[in-house]
């Protein structure tokens, strides 16, 4: 006889987003008050293959693009009345999914190029993350099954759509242009800190 386990779903569905938001909201405090950033940087540098091969495309297309698309798919039908819902599903929601994917690709390429520079890894890791993002963007697309059992989600294609990789190249290109532009000379205008023991620094 199989024992039936009843899991209270409602408290979990309420508690999980609340705990997640509290966690995210407290991150800036933790970053300021503890050595969270330095140990994170050291950890990422030491275990780079674990985080910069699958990580860029997983975070960009699963965590960011997937979450934003899911929230948009939930909100989108509420913004339209029932009469226009079929039209919206046929024409509007796919366009929205594609633009969310393009925006995620651009931001993901830029953010991971910045992260790799921040951690202090070589340009090889930037290349690996761009290949990971580009191929994932080319083979990933949105899936939509309108009907009585409405369902949506990511879909992996059998052949690539390489045009979807353009936002990735743009994100990396803009990051590199910002870093290697002609006006990157940094002038430090700050005065040196006054020494407590130097009487010449006394200036009432």
């Amino acid at each position, binding site marked *: 006889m199989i024992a039936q386990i009843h899991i209270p779903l409602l408290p979990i569905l309420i508690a999980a987003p609340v705990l997640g938001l509290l*966690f995210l909201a407290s*991150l800036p405090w*933790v970053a300021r*008050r*503890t*050595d*969270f950033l330095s*140990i*994170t940087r050291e*950890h990422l540098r030491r275990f*780079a*293959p*674990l*985080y*910069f*091969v*699958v*990580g860029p*495309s*997983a*975070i960009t*297309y*699963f*965590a960011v693009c997937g979450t934003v698309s899911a929230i948009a798919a939930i909100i989108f039908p509420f913004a339209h009345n029932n009469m226009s819902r079929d039209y919206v599903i046929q024409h509007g929601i796919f366009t929205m999914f594609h633009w969310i994917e393009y925006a995620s690709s651009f931001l993901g390429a830029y953010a991971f190029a910045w992260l790799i520079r921040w951690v202090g890894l*070589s340009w*090889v*890791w930037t290349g*690996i993350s761009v*290949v*990971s993002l580009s*191929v*994932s963007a080319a*083979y*990933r697309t949105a*899936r939509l099954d309108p009907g009585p059992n409405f369902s949506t*989600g*990511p*879909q*992996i*294609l*059998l*052949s*690539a759509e390489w045009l979807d990789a353009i936002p990735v190249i743009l994100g990396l290109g803009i990051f590199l242009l910002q870093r290697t532009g002609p006006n990157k000379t940094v002038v430090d205008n700050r005065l040196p800190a006054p020494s407590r023991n130097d009487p010449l620094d006394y200036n009432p």
Partner: protein
Amino acid sequence: MKGFVARFYLVTVLAGVLVTELAWAVLISTGHNNQGSSLVTRLLFPVLFLVGTVNHFRSR
């Protein structure tokens, strides 16, 4: 205490990242919705992981 808080946050964030990576790697290498998968998506992450690991240990 602050060291414990920092490590707790690090472990939590990185555990979330690793679970997301695992789910994405399985999805892209096996395909979805019975469409199957292509050779490129099956070999993408193993090849990149090999290149990255070799480069990582050569540069250390």
